[in-house]
């Protein structure tokens, strides 16, 4: 027999907890239920033949960015569309702009917009709406750089938009492809500002709600390609990689689709399950090793090249990624094949040459500091690559230390320049994107990642390339830049990412592209 007092305490604590739980257990408005009710009401008078199709996609990061972001939601949600996208060869492809042409003076890009497109709120997509979006994107800090050469934007016809630049820029359509040309209803654009009141786009799916780590979408019946097959799509943010795979196996999600969503070491767990389709996709993300080019001894390009020669990229990809990656042979993604000068790798494993370069150029007792960002290391095997490098340096008698820091501390260390070598993932498109970001003196990543590389020759070539309208000539300049990047080696590529993703077998026509964007329009459930 327990005492009355004990029961009193248990009762007290239980009441306290129940009070808090009651708040949580209040008939929470389940957005999915609401959607189902709405759809039921809308289709009440139609013959109930069609079975409701709901697709749940597990993702490893939250795709909801909020009103201050350039696009409110990630592009993978298929809620919004841009003027331009890229094809598989990374060439501009029509999206909401049906045709793209250039004026005689090569300074004005003319976008012939697709007719018959409406935003989810019913507003028409036309040149005025596109103009309002371009003005917003030009102001927005995330996209202002893409429009830095823009002189003026004009709506010259109902569906004709002209963007005049200060100087010819052949890569402009590539530069504004995908995120930087996202179109939203003028009704949700803050007057004179950059915020969006809601993510009202033109895509095959409309935003319905966001709660409990999930984005709820419903099919857009007025989509310009026609009504999508799947009625509702849910993007579920599942942070733990083990849980994501378990959820797919248990059928709680129908697909896992995002960059790095399934780790290479998880593949054996899914292989051989007949209900699961395992897929791979080359993506635009590459892993680089970069140097603080002002710190001795890596201020010497020969030392940088020597360290690069110690990396057996083939072995790294096979042992750390189980082959799910491509050993790098150029600084640019292999998807941009046209811009890569030859088929031979510039970044071969050559320990003898590496040893010679380091022997000749390193002083005794010089210590190399390898910095690792632990936040990135959770998605890419950066710590293991750092350990591999440390072992290789150790074999040559070169002392090194690895410092693993979370994002905030890592950024601060980069800012102080208190390191020699580090690793990072980077996603780019046009070769200009790479060279302007990493090799141009004082430019974005060159500066913010603490590389601090400066070369007048590189600056001139980059400026020349960005304005060269002749494609063949431009290509030659990029070949020269690749020579220079190899020789100076302020950063060297390690491998190009190959993402593994998966669906349940009843999910059909579901594919993710090199931007990790699944095309939801043709997808259906069998």
């Amino acid at each position, binding site marked *: *027999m*327990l*005492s009355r*007092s*004990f029961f*009193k*305490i*248990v009762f*007290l*604590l239980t009441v306290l*907890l*129940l009070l*808090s*739980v009651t*708040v*949580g*257990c209040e008939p*929470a408005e*389940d957005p999915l239920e609401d959607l189902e009710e709405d759809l039921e009401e809308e289709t009440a008078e139609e013959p109930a033949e069609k079975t409701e199709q709901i697709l749940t996609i597990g993702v490893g990061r939250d795709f*909801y*960015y*909020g*009103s*201050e*972001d*350039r696009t409110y939601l990630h592009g993978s949600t298929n809620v919004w569309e841009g003027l331009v996208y890229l094809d598989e060869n990374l060439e501009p492809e029509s999206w909401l702009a049906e045709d793209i042409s250039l004026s005689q003076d090569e300074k004005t890009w003319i976008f012939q917009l697709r007719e018959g497109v409406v935003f989810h709120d019913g507003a028409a997509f036309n040149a005025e709406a596109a103009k309002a979006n371009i003005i917003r994107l030009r102001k927005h*800090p*995330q996209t202002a*750089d893409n429009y830095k050469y823009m002189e003026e934007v004009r709506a010259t016809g109902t569906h004709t938009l002209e963007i005049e630049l200060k100087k010819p820029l052949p890569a402009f359509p590539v530069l504004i492809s995908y995120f930087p040309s996202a179109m939203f209803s003028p009704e949700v654009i803050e007057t004179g500002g950059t*915020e969006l009141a809601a993510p009202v786009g033109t895509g095959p799916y409309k935003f319905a709600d966001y709660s*409990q*780590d999930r984005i709820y979408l419903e099919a857009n019946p007025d989509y310009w390609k026609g009504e999508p097959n799947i009625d509702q799509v849910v993007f*579920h*943010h*599942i*942070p*733990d990689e*083990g*849980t994501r795979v*378990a*959820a797919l*196996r*248990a059928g*709680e999600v129908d697909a896992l689709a995002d960059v790095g969503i399934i780790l290479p070491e998880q593949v054996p767990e899914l292989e051989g399950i007949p209900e699961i389709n395992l897929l791979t996709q080359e993506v635009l993300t590459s892993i680089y090793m970069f140097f603080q080019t002002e710190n001795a001894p890596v201020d010497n390009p020969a030392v940088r090249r020597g360290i690069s020669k110690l990396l057996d990229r083939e072995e790294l990809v096979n042992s750390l990624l189980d082959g799910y990656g491509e050993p790098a042979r150029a600084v640019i993604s292999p998807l941009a094949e046209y811009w890569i000068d030859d088929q031979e790798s510039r970044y071969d494993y050559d320990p003898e040459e590496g040893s010679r370069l380091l022997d000749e150029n390193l002083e005794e007792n010089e210590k190399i500091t390898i910095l690792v960002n632990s*936040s990135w290391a959770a998605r890419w095997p950066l710590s293991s690559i750092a350990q591999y490098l440390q072992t290789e340096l150790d074999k040559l008698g070169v002392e090194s230390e690895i410092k693993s*820091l*979370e*994002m*905030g*501390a890592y*950024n*601060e*260390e980069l*800012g102080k320049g208190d390191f020699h070598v580090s690793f990072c993932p980077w996603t780019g498109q046009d070769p200009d994107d790479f060279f302007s*970001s990493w090799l141009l003196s004082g*430019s*974005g*990543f060159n*500066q*913010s990642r603490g590389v601090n590389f400066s070369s007048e020759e590189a600056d001139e070539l980059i400026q020349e390339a960005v304005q060269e309208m002749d494609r063949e000539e431009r290509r030659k300049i990029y070949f020269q830049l690749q020579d220079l990047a190899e020789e100076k080696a302020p950063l060297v590529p390690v491998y190009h990412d190959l993402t593994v993703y998966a669906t349940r077998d009843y999910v059909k026509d579901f594919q993710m592209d090199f931007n990790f964007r699944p095309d939801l329009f043709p997808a259906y459930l069998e």
Partner: protein
Amino acid sequence: MQVMLKYLIRRLLTLVPVLLGVTFITFILMDLAPGDPAEILLTRRDIEVTPENLQLAREALGVDGPLPLRYANWLLDVLQGNLGTSFTTGEPVSAEILGRLPATAELAAGGLLVMFLLAFPLGTVAALLRGTVGDHIGRLTALVGASIPSFYLGLLLITYIAVPMEGIPVMGKDEGLISLLLPSVTLGFGLAATYARLLRANLLEVLQLDYIRSARSRGLREAVIIGRHAFRNALIPVVTLLGITMGHLLGGTVVVERIFAWPGVGRLAVEAIFDRNYPVIQGYVLLMGLAFVCMNLVIDLSYRLLDPRVRMEEGEGKVS
């Protein structure tokens, strides 16, 4: 009753310095921590980190002024019921935290329930059967429970229970009470180990005391001695620990929330720390400080029910 009311008011008044203290210390710690929120935000949004962009971002986030001024501004906003807006989403902090608090409360309740169900029988039986096989089994179970990391136990439960068995969800909280099962077991199992050991040790200690011996000599039944006299006194340290545990649970259990994709405040707070999302961190610290103080107040009040000496010291009774 008046004594009780005075006590309550006095305890509630201590809330003010406690909350001021914890929020100010947090403010200082966040400021001292390496990493600039403006730089993290720019990196996160793929914006080039140039000195101009950094300055603009710092101004927009309100992190460019001196620390005392920023704290004073934050405090003024809080007094007007405004916890600020999240650096990363632009949503009000109060909405972000309160939107996730119910999920955490549910998980805390589930975890405590599992803990009660496991710890009390285990602890009591182990104490009463001291030195026997039952005691060894109970102690071994407690040792395993205390040793097994929750992330591992969670993954085991997911792999061997949720994946093969239909109806038991792997993650999330959509399926109602059944969704709580595995996260609660994961949480409660580790807690139960600690509580069972504590209860066993306390019961053994109390059972050696003179008043228990005299109760036995007077011929009281063993069940009455254990249930009414020994158990009640053995509970006091357990209840003290419970106050701290409940505060921790309401603060969120990051590992369990992550493994079961449970949308609670723990994950929100950890993500905010990595992003140097000061308003969310400050809002979280404020609410958790409040929760800790309130929970401990409830626990202190419960001593009055458990231990008559407390009531007597406060003048409600007379020591004879």
